Every structure is written in structure tokens, then in C-alpha cells.
């Protein structure tokens, strides 16, 4: 096996990098891929809670780098998905504990053992971002249809291009079809035109994402139940080389909205 190393990054924080990494990991594992997800946000780890694996961590990325344990010992197996592992970030250290060469070494070791290594990059363009993209074969830039997020995405794309880190693909997250229709939000084609990179996926704003995060059970586990869950699976399939049409994002009908309101009241 020679894994593909995919780094998920964004520049701006809070656009959904961790959500997308967690869900892509789950979706790829459900498509029979052997996946390792790495939380590269040393000091601010969160991929573990998104995946509901926070109680199972013994060692972390920095322990591996500093030789306190073997890579295998730090990898947390997801019981729900025998083919997915998490390599957690250290919580009590900071980003100076990791060098780009360390990430390259860890990923080279993982390449032999799985199909995909997904790296959840920290926000920003400093050291954390640098070491997160160092081993990447492909990068996914996540943005929202908002001015600051698109601007930061553009900056990050420029930096990745300068490092010649292979193809850069775009995921636009938190699209609100109702606002787009009213002309009060940048559309998918606006963002693609501005950033001029290959579009990998679009994810609608979906309350189900928040609920899934509350439970530590990524939406991608049950992809039929929500539009966003389906979107994650589409992205995973495109990563696997399938041609999947982009979903048409329509605003929910009045009836669906009423049902949704009633349901959210019950839960």
C-alpha cells in the first residue's frame, strides 16, 4: 500500500477543517479504505472530540516524534470502523514541538500501512500550517462563502503553490442556499471564479453537523439522513477518483422547515 497524504487547511479558523477531516475520514473508511487521520493542531486538539475518541487517547503525535512511544501505540483505533485510526495532537505542548521533517517522517511510515492519511491542519500560516502541508501529496483548502474566509483561502493557496505541494482542491462549507438565492451570499461559482482552483466539494449549512459534533458521531456515519452527510460522501468518492455530480442546493421547502422545527423541538 502507498497511502495518499491529504492535508486539510484553510488559513482562517472556524471554517470547518476539523469537521471535514473527521467526516472524510469516516466516509473513506466506509468506502473500505484504510485511513489514518492526524490532528496536527498541537496545543488545541479537537479532532478527537469530533470523532468521539477523546477517552481513548494514551499517546500523541509529539510522543511519537520525541520517541516516547512507537507510532502504532499512539494510533487510536475507532471501534465503529476497524479501518480508521486517529493520531491525536498533544494538548499540553505547542507547535514548536513539531518540525516539517517530523511530519514527513511520520507520514512516510504510515504510507506503507494505509490508503489515506488525512492531516487536519491548524488555522493560520505559521509553523503549524508549515508542518501540516510538508508531507502532503494533495491539499484540500476549506473556505466559507464569506469575504474573510475567501481572502485567507487565497493567501493559503498562494503559499501552497509556492511550496509546489501537488494539486490544491477546494471545499466550500456552510453554504446557505436561501441567502445565495436572495443574492446575499457569495455563490459557489463566485468563490470558484475568485479562487480559480479545482472544486472538490460543496457542503450546505446543516444543523445536523452541530448535533453530530455534540455526540462525537460524525454525520458521515449515516450519510442518507442529511444533505451534509451526503456531501461528505460525495467528496470522499471524488477523492477516490469517481466522477460525482455536485449536489443542487435548494432551500428547504416550507413543509420541510416546519417538520425540521418540530423535530428539533422534540430532540
Amino acid at each position, binding site marked *: 500500500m502507498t497511502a495518499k497524504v491529504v492535508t486539510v487547511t484553510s488559513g482562517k479558523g472556524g471554517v470547518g477543517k476539523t469537521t471535514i477531516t473527521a467526516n472524510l475520514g469516516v466516509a473513506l473508511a466506509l468506502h473500505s479504505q484504510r485511513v489514518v487521520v492526524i490532528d496536527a493542531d498541537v496545543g488545541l486538539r479537537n479532532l478527537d472530540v469530533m470523532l468521539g475518541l477523546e477517552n481513548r487517547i494514551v499517546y500523541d503525535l509529539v510522543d511519537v516524534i520525541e520517541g516516547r512511544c512507537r507510532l502504532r501505540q499512539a494510533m487510536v483505533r475507532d471501534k465503529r470502523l476497524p479501518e480508521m485510526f486517529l493520531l491525536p495532537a498533544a494538548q499540553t505542548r505547542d507547535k514548536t514541538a513539531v518540525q516539517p521533517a517530523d511530519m514527513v517522517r511520520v507520514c512516510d511510515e504510515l504510507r506503507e500501512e494505509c490508503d489515506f492519511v488525512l492531516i487536519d491542519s491548524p488555522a493560520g500560516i505559521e509553523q503549524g500550517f508549515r508542518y501540516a502541508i510538508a508531507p502532503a501529496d494533495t491539499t484540500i483548502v476549506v473556505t466559507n462563502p464569506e*469575504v474573510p474566509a475567501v*481572502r485567507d483561502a487565497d493567501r493559503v493557496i498562494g503559499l501552497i503553490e509556492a511550496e509546489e505541494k501537488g494539486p490544491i482542491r477546494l471545499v466550500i462549507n456552510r453554504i446557505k442556499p436561501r441567502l445565495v438565492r436572495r443574492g*446575499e451570499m457569495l455563490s459557489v461559482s*463566485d468563490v470558484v471564479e475568485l479562487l480559480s482552483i479545482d472544486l472538490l466539494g460543496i457542503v450546505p449549512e446543516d444543523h445536523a453537523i452541530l448535533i453530530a459534533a455534540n455526540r462525537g458521531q460524525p454525520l458521515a456515519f449515516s450519510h442518507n439522513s442529511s444533505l451534509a452527510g451526503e456531501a461528505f460522501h460525495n467528496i470522499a468518492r471524488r477523492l477516490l477518483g469517481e466522477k460525482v455530480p455536485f449536489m443542487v442546493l435548494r432551500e428547504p421547502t416550507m413543509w420541510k422547515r416546519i417538520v425540521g422545527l418540530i423535530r428539533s423541538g422534540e430532540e
Partner: protein
Amino acid sequence: MRALGRLFGGRGQDEPASGTVAKERLRLVLAHDRTSISPTLLEMLKDEIIAVISQHVQIDASAVEVSFSQNARETRLVADIPLLSRPKRR
């Protein structure tokens, strides 16, 4: 009435949708970010281009436009310089 419309998220007739405004603002900001040419530098370039060209040919300095054009992720500086036609001799 208009104020009431605004209250409910409507906008005036001549006011463009905020999505369009966002796109136009981003277009400019990205061009400046990508090239690290600030609006001030762009003005300076424009003035110097006008000065250099005016030494050799007559141009309509007030109508000169220097701007960015984007093609994929490539940015170009485009100068549009109207030449003044020579007065016709008979």
C-alpha cells in the same frame, strides 16, 4: 416604508445585493494581496506611466486606467492609455 423594508432585510432599489458587493470587493482585495501592490502603489505606477509616455506621445492623462486582470491564478497589470489624435492638417 423603505426603512421598514430595510428592517426586514430588504434593500433599496439601487442598492446592489451584498453578495455582488462581496464579490467585487474580493476581486480587488485578492488582486492586491496576490501581487502585493497596494492601491497607493498602483496610483504611483499610474502617474509614472503617464509621465513616461507623455514624454513621447500625447495622451489623454485624465482617462488613463491602470488595473488588474485575472486569468486563472495569473494576475496581469493592464494599462489602458487613450492616445490623443493629432490635429488633422489640410
